[in-house]
């Protein structure tokens, strides 16, 4: 039973996501649309499953939604801060810095989510990852205290991403 389920639905979360995307694309909700979206959501992951054999373990969509709202709020706050920096700080007094974030996360999907979050919040861009994926290189636009930025990334984002992708 479990194996048949996994053969039919290799990525259950993707199936749901595709169904929702299909409904939004159609711009109207009807049972027929939902069923057709579900069928698409089953066929597409099934047909492409040989290219992504690994299913992320223990993904928690509920916590992901809470995390998205936190990140949205941070994006708004950081946007205003960075706009202020762009308009007021001259180039000669700008203090850009490379900072290194040691990663506790091991799953590639979790690291991708964290790196995407860092880039989306203005003022920080994730630039590179170390050879065996245990450190993230982040560029900061303007900071007096690189350690504080690193600690904020670790406490505010990485801890939550770890909860989303915990088994």
């Amino acid at each position, binding site marked *: 039973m479990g194996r048949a389920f996994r053969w039919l639905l290799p990525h259950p979360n993707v199936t749901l996501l595709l169904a929702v995307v299909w409904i*939004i694309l159609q711009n109207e909700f009807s049972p027929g649309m939902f069923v057709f979206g579900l069928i698409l959501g089953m066929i597409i992951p099934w047909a492409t499953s040989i290219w992504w054999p690994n299913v992320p373990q223990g993904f928690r969509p509920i916590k992901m939604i809470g995390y998205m709202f936190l990140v949205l709020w941070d994006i708004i706050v950081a946007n205003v801060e960075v706009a202020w920096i762009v308009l007021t700080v001259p180039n000669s007094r700008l203090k850009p810095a490379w900072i290194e974030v040691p990663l506790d996360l091991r799953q590639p999907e979790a690291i991708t989510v964290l790196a995407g979050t860092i880039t989306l919040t203005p003022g920080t861009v994730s630039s590179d990852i*170390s050879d065996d994926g245990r450190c993230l290189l982040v560029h900061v636009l303007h900071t007096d205290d690189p350690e504080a930025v690193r600690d904020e990334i670790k406490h505010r984002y990485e801890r939550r991403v770890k909860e989303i992708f915990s088994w």
Partner: protein
Amino acid sequence: MTLEIIGIYAIAVCLLIGAAFAMVGVIGLIKFNDPMTRLHAPTKVGTMGIGMLLLASVLHSVVFGDGSMHELLIMAFLFVTAPISAHFLAKVSIHNRTTETPPPTSRDGTWSTLNSPDTTPGPDKPD
């Protein structure tokens, strides 16, 4: 009727905020002089600027009849793809040494972009 008036003002405010952030992004793109600091400007346009413009579009379609949720999809796809292009731009500027080379890591050998035979530092760099 009053709802429409409130809606029009809300749409106008969203458009203005979005345009203002796009403007600040462009100013940043012109003003900064290093590839990495310049990279920070488009991330701002991509999130707040486009976000507010799309919010105005959603409000418009909700206030004037047919509600549309397509903008949510635009937003989602933008938020998923924008960090990837920014990441690649950063990797290119590290690879080409057009920006300050990052300090070595404390835990591993080196950064993955620097770990390639044709990025060895030194004066004999081919141009």
